[in-house]
């Protein structure tokens, strides 16, 4: 199928800092691509370039068949953008916000109002429609912001960290809404720091670090690459760590990682609960006590450790500033 989003060799510098370092992206029509990476990886910069908010220093971009650099206005007609902090007006009501956006899409007064009502209904905001947005919860704001991105029924949708800062409940609500959209055939590019989110929503994932793609593929392929689930064991006494290490490494795909401070051992496995049960019985047979044991899905941190050999929390990854000079956790749930 034809690519609806295609970016080639994107480079963007902010002074001495390289935010994007030759990033290529392509998303076929009706597909969902997740850009997965830690803070400062260049995700927001990429989205800003794709949505005409920023000009790259190098590279070419095409969205919905239009050259973004040559005809940004035409691109704006075809896209919807929802940012990582809700771009809605606090003093306006939900209805007024959507009505304003509709007018600015030049839909005409009547159609703008009608569309605002439709979207409020769809995003379960009818009751709050006439209240100023400053009385909304974090989740409601995000839903309104997403509704704002959909006013003109765009063919391509960009969601920049749609669930960052949301509580778990609002996050799963948001996922449901996004999944519905995707089922409706919208082409979507979303950025996220959560492996789980990318796994759940995206057809394809591009892992990005220091402004370049370090891995790409389907969620399954990526998981194969970084190993499936993780067994995590915490030894009750530190002296047992070497033995537990030895037992765990029999099942591990890769090497076993040890956190001495927390007495925690982690290993990627392929067999899931079967492996966990075996390890636990081995440990029990040796008479070793564990204070905790469990199976968990790989996180962004695991992906990073495997792909780059360093953790996302590693200070050396933080030498690039965040994509934008704004505080990350701007949205608090009120």
């Amino acid at each position, binding site marked *: 199928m034809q690519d609806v989003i295609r970016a080639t060799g994107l480079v963007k510098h902010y002074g001495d800092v390289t935010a994007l370092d030759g990033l290529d992206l392509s998303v076929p029509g009706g597909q969902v691509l997740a850009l997965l990476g830690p803070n400062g990886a260049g995700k927001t910069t990429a989205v800003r370039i794709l*949505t*005409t*908010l*920023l*000009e790259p220093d190098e590279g070419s971009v095409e969205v919905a068949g239009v050259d973004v650099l040559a005809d940004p*206005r*035409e691109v*704006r*007609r075809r*896209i*919807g*953008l929802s*940012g990582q*902090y*809700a*771009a*809605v*007006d606090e*003093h*306006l009501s939900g209805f*007024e916000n959507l009505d*304003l*956006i509709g*007018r*600015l*899409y*030049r839909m005409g007064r009547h159609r703008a109002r009608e569309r605002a009502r439709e979207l409020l209904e769809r995003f379960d905001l009818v009751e709050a429609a006439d209240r*100023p947005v400053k009385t909304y919860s974090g989740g409601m704001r995000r839903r309104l912001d997403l509704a*704002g991105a959909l006013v003109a029924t765009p063919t391509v949708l960009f969601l920049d960290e749609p669930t960052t800062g949301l509580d778990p409940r609002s996050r799963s609500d948001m996922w449901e809404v996004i999944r519905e959209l995707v089922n409706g055939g919208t082409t979507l590019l979303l950025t996220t720091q959560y492996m789980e989110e990318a796994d759940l929503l995206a057809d394809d994932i591009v892992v990005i670090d220091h402004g370049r793609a370090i891995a790409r593929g389907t969620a399954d392929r990526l998981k194969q690459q970084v190993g499936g689930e993780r067994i995590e064991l915490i030894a009750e006494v530190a002296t047992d760590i070497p033995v537990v290490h030895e037992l765990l490494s029999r099942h591990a795909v890769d090497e076993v990682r040890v956190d001495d401070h927390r007495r925690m051992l982690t290993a990627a496995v392929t067999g899931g609960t079967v492996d966990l049960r075996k390890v636990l019985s081995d440990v029990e047979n040796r008479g070793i006590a564990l204070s905790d044991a469990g199976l968990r899905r790989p996180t962004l941190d695991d992906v990073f450790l495997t792909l780059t050999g360093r953790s996302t929390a590693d200070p050396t990854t933080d030498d690039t500033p965040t994509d934008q000079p704004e505080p990350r956790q*701007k949205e608090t749930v009120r």
Partner: protein
Amino acid sequence: MSELTWAAADGYAVARRNLIKIKRVPELLIWILMSPIMFVLLFVYVFGGAIDIPGVSYREWLIAGIFAQTVVFGSTFTGAGLAEDMEKGIIDRFRSLPMSRSAVIVGRTASDIVYNVLSITIMSLTGLLVGWRIHTSVPEAAAGFLLLLAFSYAFSWIMAWVAMKIPSVEVINNASFMVIMPLTFISNAFVPLETFPAPLQVFAEWNPVSSVTQAARDLFGNAPTAESVAQLQASGVDVFTLSDAWSLTHPVAYTLLWIVGILVVFVPLSVRAYRHSATK
């Protein structure tokens, strides 16, 4: 519709949004409107006794000066409002829409006209209470008010440009105070400039705040005329001679020149700065 009509419609949509904000946070407006009232009362009652204007009561003479000062300070409101928008996420929304690139500023300067109309109304009422009267015809008085509004509109565009360059509400508020305060005080707004030391007097004569004040005074019938001053001097009263600088003898023309000049320079500069700040 033509592109220009669309640009106007976009500007209208943004202006409407700004006015809703004023409606939702009326406290802000109340405090901003309090200051001109305070100025009228302070100057009338504190300085009023100490300043003599030949042939005209100081109270009546003063009001146009307060009008001029207030509408110039009102441009800070434009700058602060735009800076606030630029700091917030809403600006990314606007930029990602196929709307006119000038709409954010056009809408803001337009909604601030409404604000200036409100503040001039409040000041006029306060003025009437303390004894200010219009002594000319309705068209002349209307022309006086329109000139003040046009002047404030032009100043709003200067502040719009500043806000695009320095998008910070705090900086705008403090910096504009440092510039606007001397601009309005080294003028004939509060004290006759004829009493200033020579260098200040020349500055004050060509200061557009003086000319817009003078124009409004003339159009409201609150200014002493050269003839009345000459008569007073002939009868032996010790009064100063009125400045005969062209800017003050033709204040309407001189003010209009400033208005056109400011708009010609700052409309394109501001819109360009907005566009530029959008893609950096």
